[in-house]
């Protein structure tokens, strides 16, 4: 029997991306600005979120969606302790959030009464990069002790980001971290990324990051009008 070639040319992530666009529309209609925070485990995603909340709430109304591979509520408990609604998504061992999971989480968020939605993705520098969620800005949090070679080893995650946060700046004097080398790696991959050097421990640089965020939240509100 002869075989026949059928051209397909379809993006393999198409199904995910279409749901991501539906998620985006929901957020846009509600005038909510959503950020997707990605990082390796231990870089300080949760600490960055808590610092961000402390700086912006209650003027900015915030909700958080926490993606975790294990059914532990350690992160969402910390967020709730600040009086901020938090929705926990257990990925059931999976290494990333995808658009359908985010969509289910979104159903539990009171979009009409928030301005900013923060998504904490699963701690991982590889898998989350491939799955659009429908957020407006992807943010990667790196940290000084992780080392300066990450953009060279995990290039994909830096491609689609708008913000690059470098956390634990207070450790810079104690660690061999070549800031120029790190920044160069990110910039080759993504020349438009905005950098913020922060320390969640000392609070250094946090307000620069949150003023960027405030601007974007405002823009999003105006677009929805």
């Amino acid at each position, binding site marked *: 029997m002869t075989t*026949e070639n059928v051209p397909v040319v379809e*993006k393999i992530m198409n199904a995910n991306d279409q749901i991501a666009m539906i998620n985006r529309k929901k957020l846009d209609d509600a005038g909510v600005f959503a950020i997707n925070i990605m990082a390796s485990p231990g870089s300080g995603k949760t600490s960055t979120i808590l610092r961000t909340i402390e700086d912006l709430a209650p003027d900015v109304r915030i909700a958080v969606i926490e993606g975790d591979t294990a059914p532990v509520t350690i992160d969402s408990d910390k967020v709730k302790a600040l009086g901020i609604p938090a929705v926990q998504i257990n990925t059931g061992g999976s290494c990333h959030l995808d658009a359908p999971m985010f969509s289910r989480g979104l159903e539990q968020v009171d979009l009409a009464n928030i301005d900013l939605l923060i998504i904490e993705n699963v701690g991982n520098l590889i*898998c989350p990069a491939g799955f659009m969620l429908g957020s407006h800005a992807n943010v990667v949090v790196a940290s000084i002790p992780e080392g300066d070679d990450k953009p*060279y080893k995990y290039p994909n995650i830096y491609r689609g980001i708008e913000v690059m946060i470098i956390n634990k700046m207070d450790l810079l004097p104690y660690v061999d971290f070549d800031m120029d080398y790190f920044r160069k790696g990110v910039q*080759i991959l993504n020349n438009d990324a905005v950098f913020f050097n922060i320390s969640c421990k000392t609070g250094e640089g946090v307000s620069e990051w949150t003023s960027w965020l405030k601007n974007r939240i405002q823009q999003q509100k105006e677009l929805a009008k």
Partner: protein
Amino acid sequence: MHELSVTESILNIAKNHAEKAKAKQVTDIHIVIGALSSIVDDSIQFYWDIITQDTICASAQLHFKRVPAKLTCQDCNHTYTIEDELSPCPKCGSIRIKVVGGEEFWLESIEIER
């Protein structure tokens, strides 16, 4: 680990197109993977053999075409590919670079028997 959901997605796309073409079975599947897309073909193959059992794709061979990361310097227009470590423009040293290839991740074509 994310290769499982990716593999399911490949199967869905292949099945859709095979049904549309009224295929009896799918014999080959051609996939293009860019170097920047962080997909491991071995893992896809591993999941593929498990999830395609009893489907129209059960005996389909996967073929992967790897595409290197291709960059263009925005200062001197030089285009280069990255085989090893990410580097600034080898001609002028600029880091104002545009990624023009290497992010592909698509199903190019299938081969079927009717």
